[in-house]
């Protein structure tokens, strides 16, 4: 049995959780001049993700327009997934523009245990994340998702084996994953409900609509044998430093962040991993925090490149209070591709990793170089070499 956890109007729900005064206010979340997401009231008025903001406002002028915070939504989704992993190892999130669906595999559990687990999941999400989900349980992903969307918030619907077809039959046919052309053809043929499609002979459906139509026919009959495509949790590597007393000296913060990057990089290189997303967290003396992140064009674990990216983040840092702790993390880790190591020579940075980072932190990275011959045939001697810095060059 597969459980489908549905979080309707996810982005709006996260915003309302952050600011309870928005609970009863219709919301339109904007990003880059377009609608990122909207609350259910605005969706009913015709506001859709991707619409220009001016059009959305004309459709539903009563809605309050606020900027979307995709990072926060990602973070909340990651927290929910972490909770769900404690219940079942196989998960498949399907984040949509409006709603978020998460499929959980309950394959090995018996019926009563599945229901108890579903109730416990519901309760835990409500308590720890403060969002209200709905849960549908069925033999396949499609009937489970339909079950979840058919009921109200904070409820669970369990479709017993064999009940799927009768449950799906009265639902409108557009609930199936149709493209525009198929939807038009079904409409012209007078097919309005899923049940009407399910009663057609499968050979005729195959002849008329091809293999995709055959698959839709099977979905309409409540047969969905797609497995849960579970992906491993996204690994994060982080390095943290706690100050004895609140630090306000920006130069020292920069020097320390270089050292944290070195630590992070050496750990990742040991594990042969590279990361896509670099994040800096500053915990401030006044109890607040400052967080910013940057997504790298190419994943890396090289200290030079990581430091260049972190410098950009540090430039944006607005610190109006002493920093008590600093954390640098690299997420979305993937295995590093193999590379040819030098056969006879060992890079100096690797060889002296034990003491060189300390020297760089203490005296500054602009004091230490590794000379490298770049063009021995250049007429001017000063053009024949390059002084390569270790960090921050």
């Amino acid at each position, binding site marked *: 049995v597969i459980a489908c956890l549905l979080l309707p109007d996810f982005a709006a729900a996260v915003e309302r959780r952050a600011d309870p005064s928005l609970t009863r206010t219709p919301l339109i979340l904007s990003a880059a001049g377009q609608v990122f997401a909207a609350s259910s009231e605005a969706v009913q008025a015709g506001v859709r993700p991707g619409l220009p903001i001016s059009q959305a406002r004309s459709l539903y002028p009563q809605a309050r327009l606020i900027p979307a915070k995709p990072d926060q939504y990602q973070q909340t989704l990651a927290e929910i997934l972490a909770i769900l992993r404690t219940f079942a190892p196989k998960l498949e999130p399907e984040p949509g523009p409006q709603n978020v669906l998460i499929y959980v595999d309950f394959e090995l559990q018996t019926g009563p245990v599945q229901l108890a687990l579903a109730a416990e999941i519901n309760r835990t999400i409500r308590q720890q994340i403060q969002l209200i989900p709905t849960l549908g349980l069925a033999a396949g992903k499609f009937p489970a998702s339909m079950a979840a969307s058919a009921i109200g918030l904070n409820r669970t619907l369990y479709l017993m084996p064999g009940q799927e077809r009768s449950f799906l039959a009265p639902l409108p046919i557009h609930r199936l994953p149709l493209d525009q052309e198929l939807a038009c053809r079904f409409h012209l043929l007078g097919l309005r409900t899923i049940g009407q499609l399910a009663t057609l002979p499968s050979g005729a459906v195959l002849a008329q609509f091809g293999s995709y139509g055959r698959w839709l026919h099977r979905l309409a009959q409540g047969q969905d044998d797609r497995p849960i495509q579970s992906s491993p949790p996204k690994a994060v590597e982080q390095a943290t430093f706690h100050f004895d007393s609140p630090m306000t000296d920006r130069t020292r913060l920069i020097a320390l962040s270089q050292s944290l990057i070195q630590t992070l990089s050496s750990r990742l290189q040991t594990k042969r991993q590279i990361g896509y997303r670099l994040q800096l967290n500053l915990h401030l003396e006044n109890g607040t925090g400052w967080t910013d992140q940057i997504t790298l064009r190419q994943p890396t674990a090289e200290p030079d490149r990581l430091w260049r990216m972190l410098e950009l983040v540090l430039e944006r840092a607005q610190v109006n209070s002493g920093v008590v702790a600093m954390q640098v993390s690299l997420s979305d880790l993937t295995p590093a591709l193999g590379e040819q190591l030098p056969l006879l020579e*060992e*890079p100096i940075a690797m060889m002296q990793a034990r003491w060189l980072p300390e020297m760089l932190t203490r*005296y500054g990275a602009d*004091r*230490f*170089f590794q000379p490298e011959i770049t063009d*021995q045939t250049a007429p001017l001697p000063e053009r024949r*070499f390059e002084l390569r810095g270790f960090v921050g060059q």
Partner: protein
Amino acid sequence: VGSKKRKRLEATVATIQRRWGLKALRRGKPVSTTAKFPHIPTGFPPLDQALVGIGGIPRSRLTELLGAPTSGMATLALKIIANAQANGDTAAYIDLGGTFDPDYTARCEVNLTRLLLVRPKTGPEALEIVQSLIAGRGVGVLVFEAVPHLLTDPHGFRALSAALRQLSQLLPKSPCAPIFLTPLQLGDVMSTANYPSGFALPHYATVRLLLEKERWLQKGRDIRGYQARVLVLKNKLGAAGKSATISITFNGVVRGDST
């Protein structure tokens, strides 16, 4: 030693030990004359032989190279680096003046991937970095080309004295061979007037080598190198005063030969 003299000596030792402690006077152990001191070969066998009791540049001790500009001091230092690297060591070059030439260094057969170039901002900072490098025990040979800047810096003398005092405590625990390059003014290099008075380096150095260019080496009308004489001015581990002649040719690759 006669019995009277021995008794007097024992009484004197007892008096000193009562007053200054047992460790104030201790009996010395016999020194093995066959065991060689840990060292880095210079790459010039006659010079290694001239360094009696060592066989090269001593590790864990200070070495000073003196000479007029273009006498071959820097080249000799680079050849020592190349030899140290051949034995698996890494090297550091403290270049305060910003005159380090990687192209020439590579032609002296130095492996640049095993060379750390340090460009400090001030003389005292350069000395601090030297101390950290030696304390870190990460480098096998360290060339300090910042002495002229310490001479011109009003605080340089004092900073160098303090740093050398600390280095003398750090060096016995480190395998590093620090080499200080002290350029002398043009003219009579043997004249003491050319050497700064009150400079602490000669006192702390275990080995002091003076380089003097003897003549250019010519092939037809072309100059293909030069010949220099190296005099061992000081050797705390053996007899000083010996000299060796070395020749340095530069035809694409800088080579050091002994003559």
